[in-house]
């Protein structure tokens, strides 16, 4: 897991591409390569502040969605003054970036397959994790380093023809469902039924676990979805790693603002103990978090 250089750094925007209802912000970054699941705090260098209600003021936390050759990708959805300002940035403009921060996804337990479950803009860390799993950068329980899958391109099947790290992704509507293009081997569910399965992504997860429960689930998305994933996996004794989202002031454990209750008492800092937290550490995923957006 990569440590962040001490202090925020100025990075250039390479592009900001529309992806359905989302944007993919691409930045040039000479910092360390992130591990899948880690995040960065982002703020525009110019005009950060002075928008609606004189916000934004604090940097915003984003999971790395992809990392290739010193190019970091972040998935944006316009949900407030911070995300709106970041969505306006164009190639040649600059960002403050602090990262990579936080915990990362851990490889599946021996003999288990990776199953990715995402919702909305929360699909971002699953894309970089799928990249890592498919590139064999992490331990592959089915064949370790001599696995024929090691160099398979994204979405290629394993020796039995099943996808290596299939992704079940839920979205509100068709415009958001275009975000699924970030990943491979995808099954989509939409709330309005416009694309894929009409209903919840956890219904797809239940079906997958019915057919083969020998999986480790990696999930990121809105709190109600994560709670449903947590409850479903707990009921079936399937290990799950949840990438949580929370409003943060700092991203490096200083402010103690982004906490979630820990099973057995006390709190976990999403920025420092997470964002990837073993589901067994949580009694419940609360929909408290929210601002700043």
């Amino acid at each position, binding site marked *: 897991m990569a440590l962040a250089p001490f202090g*925020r750094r100025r990075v250039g925007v390479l592009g900001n591409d529309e992806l359905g209802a989302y944007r993919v912000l691409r930045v040039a970054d000479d910092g360390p390569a992130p591990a899948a699941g880690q995040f960065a705090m982002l703020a525009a260098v110019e005009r950060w502040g002075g928008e609606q209600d004189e916000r934004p003021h604090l940097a915003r936390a984003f999971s790395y969605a992809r990392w290739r050759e010193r190019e970091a990708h972040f998935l944006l959805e316009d949900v407030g003054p911070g995300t709106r300002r970041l969505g306006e940035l164009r190639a040649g403009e600059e960002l403050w970036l602090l990262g990579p921060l936080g915990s990362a996804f851990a490889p599946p337990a021996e003999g288990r397959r990776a199953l990715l479950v995402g919702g909305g803009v929360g699909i971002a860390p699953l894309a970089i994790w799928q990249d890592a799993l498919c590139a064999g950068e992490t331990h592959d329980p089915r064949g370790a380093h001599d696995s024929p899958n090691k160099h398979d391109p994204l979405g290629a099947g394993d020796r039995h023809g099943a996808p290596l790290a299939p992704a079940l992704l839920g979205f509100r509507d068709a415009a958001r469902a275009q975000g699924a293009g970030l990943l491979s081997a995808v099954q989509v569910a939409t709330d309005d039924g416009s694309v894929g399965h009409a209903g919840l992504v956890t219904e797809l997860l239940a079906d997958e676990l019915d057919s083969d429960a020998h999986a480790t689930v990696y999930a990121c998305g809105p709190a109600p979805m994560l709670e449903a994933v947590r409850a479903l996996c707990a009921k079936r004794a399937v290990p799950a790693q949840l990438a949580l989202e929370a409003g943060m002031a700092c991203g490096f454990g200083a402010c103690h603002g982004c906490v979630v209750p820990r099973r057995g008492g006390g*709190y976990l800092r999403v920025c420092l103990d997470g964002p990837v937290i073993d589901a067994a550490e949580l009694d419940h995923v609360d929909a408290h978090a929210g601002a700043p957006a």
Partner: protein
Amino acid sequence: MSVESRPTGHAPDDPHAPEDRHAPDDPHRPDGPRALSDLGVDFCGLRLAHPVINASGTFDLVAAAAAFGEDALRAGFPFAAFVSKTITLAPRAGNPPPRLWEAPAGLINSIGLPNKGLDGYLAEELPALTRLLADTQGAGRPAPLITNVMGSTGEEIATLLAACDERPEIAALELNVSCPNVKTGLDIGADPRALREVLCEVRPATAKPLIVKLTPNTADVAACARAAEEGGADAVSLINTLRALALAPGTGAAWLGGRTGGLSGPAIRAVALAQVAAVAGAISIPIVGMGGVQNATHARDLLDAGAGLVAVGTESFRDPAVGARIARELRGAPAAAVA
């Protein structure tokens, strides 16, 4: 308006700033042979490398070491002294979330002073802080550790101070008086008479320098500062956060789990400047000034208003290394402004 641009004063990298024709060690300098780079400050007997420290509860050293690595943190250490988070007698888990609300040019927090309690602090955190602070000031020197404590009665405060007094790793103490008095319900620090009384009671518990962190949520901060001085404080620090409320959109209910919170950041900078100036005119002990400091210009304003040290809080959330940048920028400032 950019925070860097001001009608008076020049940023250190401002090409329009008047050129200094004298080398820092030039004996013909108007102010003599004093090196510009020498920002060393004597504060209550502590020799500090520069006047920038952290505000209590805004920089978690142990967490920062985990996020950035110990070596990088040491090499770029942003503060001349380190102030711990507030330590209470019993452990506190902190307030239920949500704990944050972004305000116009600032932040409202309701963290609730999570800490391991006095015993946990002395046994676990103090050794870790001492280790991490070693060699942060160059030439093998540590940044002095200032431990911040809070209690709801004189007896509790005296216990905290006495226990810390026994530990040589602690250079000084800061007393957070933004705590409700168990009898009156008023913040101890908001009432000059109560503040003087409690300080007279607890002052004998420690021989270490005692800084009283004043609350801005009072009718007359200068009177509270005088009470602190009369009660035996060696210094005062201000301002703490301003009491603030955020409502969850569309509900009319309090957003924060702790209901009210404390406002910090640039939003409170002008209030901080006014309160530091008012206190400076009322007392003769040193002042740690803080509130919305983002750069050396803001730091200089507080120093000009009468502070001897400046603390950085919310801005460290935006950039953990900002304290070092401010200290560097102050080094480039006209000597008179930081004298």
